[in-house]
């Protein structure tokens, strides 16, 4: 892996990345000061303990009121929206092949409640959430959003998983939806999508892309039959506001 070899005792160090922002290594749990230093578009690698929780876990905890299976606030404050490709070997140890994020926008409605229950301050996933979700849920919780890179960098991320420390609810939810706890080192790269102020890298880039969209359609006649749809404005944000999961 090409993780820059600039580890030092401070939790934050920076070097220039290829085409991206500064590279930061965070030792978990990350402090508010660590997170405050992250820049949109910067590259992040993690060392410490993280866990996975997605719709199966959110429903069970937030909607059904099941108690957390482990003291998450004490264990880890990093929630990775993913399911690993993992299998148990003969000795009962889990072997993790690749790790890839899943799209986070579907989980926005549970985030307020989840932050309150879990004290998470880093969410990792695919595609980010709406800028409004950052303002409503992330900023009050002092949390940032890190996005995986390219969305297919599963082998690089798989290398960063040192050990499967635990898996909860594998029987109840299936291995894809279970709550996995991983010890990670050199885990990344991730890009800072949302900072503590709720700014969004995706939104910045969407704005730039949007400036050219109308010109693409100029001169192309519309089809004879229209379709029903929620929007015909190609510049619109397509993630829909969803009901707050409540807290």
């Amino acid at each position, binding site marked *: *892996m*090409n993780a820059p070899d600039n580890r030092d005792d401070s939790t934050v160090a920076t070097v220039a*990345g*290829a*085409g*991206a922002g500064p590279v930061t290594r965070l030792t978990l749990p990350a402090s508010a000061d660590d997170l405050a230093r992250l820049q949109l*578009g910067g*590259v992040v690698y993690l060392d410490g303990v993280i866990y996975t929780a997605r719709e199966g876990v959110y429903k069970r905890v937030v909607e059904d009121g099941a108690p957390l299976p482990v003291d998450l606030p004490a264990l880890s404050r990093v929630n990775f929206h*993913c*399911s*690993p*490709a*993992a*299998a148990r070997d003969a000795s009962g140890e889990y*072997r993790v*092949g*690749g*790790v*890839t994020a*899943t*799209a986070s926008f579907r989980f926005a409605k549970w985030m307020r409640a989840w932050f309150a229950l879990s004290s998470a301050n880093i969410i990792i996933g*695919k*595609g*980010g959430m709406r800028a409004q979700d950052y303002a409503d849920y992330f900023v009050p919780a002092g949390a940032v959003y890190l*996005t995986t*890179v*390219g*969305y*297919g*960098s*599963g*082998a*690089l*991320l*798989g*290398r960063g998983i040192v050990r499967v420390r635990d898996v909860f609810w594998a029987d109840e939810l*299936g*291995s*894809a*939806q279970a709550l996995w706890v991983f010890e990670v080192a050199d885990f990344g*790269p991730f*890009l800072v999508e949302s900072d503590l102020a709720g700014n969004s890298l*995706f939104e910045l*880039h*969407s704005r*730039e*892309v949007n400036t*050219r*969209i109308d010109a*693409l*359609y100029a001169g*192309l*006649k*519309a*089809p*004879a*039959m229209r*379709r029903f749809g929620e929007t015909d404005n*190609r510049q619109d944000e*397509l993630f829909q506001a969803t009901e707050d999961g409540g807290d």
Partner: protein
Amino acid sequence: MISCDAIETAAHQIMHNAAIDIPEDYRRAVAGMAAREEGLSCFVLQTMLENYDAASADRRPMCADTGLPRYYVKVGNEARIEGGMVALEKALRVATARATRDIPLRPNRVHPLWRTDPNNNVGMFAPEIDWSFEPRADWLELTTVHKGGLFGTDYRMLFPGDGVDGIKRFLLDTLIAFGKRGLACQPAIVGVGLGGAKDACMTLGKQAACLRVVGDRHPDPKIAALELELKDLGNAIGMGPMGFAGRAMVADLHIEVGHTHTGGMPMSVHTFCLSSRRATVRICPGDAPQFQFQYRSDPQWFSDYMRREGIE
């Protein structure tokens, strides 16, 4: 005679090849785009190239969303399969379950309503098995494709008067809708299905995306020209990987056409992904393994026979 053991062995092996080793044609395309992109788009593509190398070096899946693993089977007209086609299908199902545990693949397949997970990627109508045939051949070819399933595909009934403008608009709509924030995992090989019955239109577009390699052109020169025109249109959107500003949206674009209803021009769009996972094996009759299994990354799925017109 081709034995079921041979089929299961080969079907299991191509699951490994697909999950772990990026096809060379697609890797070259990504490397070429990385050389032309700047800023974040360039960083993403370089990271993906490193990821391909890590997957091959470690023998681990390049992407943990190992998609919906499935098979495409081409049977030579003279091929003889021990136990017949039912035995062949069983071998593919067994191989899928074994590969899920051995590689490992993510057990993505769940019941659509109850969300129960058999944890082996096998279930009702799963894995999908598509069939085709080839005259004057005694071999059997298996291709597996691991493709994510949530984003990047759409279907629309256009009409003949909508013309190429209608095709371009729907392509732009689909690429922009799913390209935002990179949900389609672009740059991708894009498949466009035109014509056929509605289901055939979807199937042709899917196969065009997943079973034709970068650089391959349709044998009809006018369709080949349209492929290149639409590819350039996609790359002119101004969107790169992850929806960042850039130019790397379409690694290549393939069109497959089928004769269709006189009043309609159905169209489907499918985007493969940054982990364009496909692997093929030809199984020849006989016992010597070195002659029996011939592995490759180009499925060579669309033969002249498949695209035939007329009655023969």
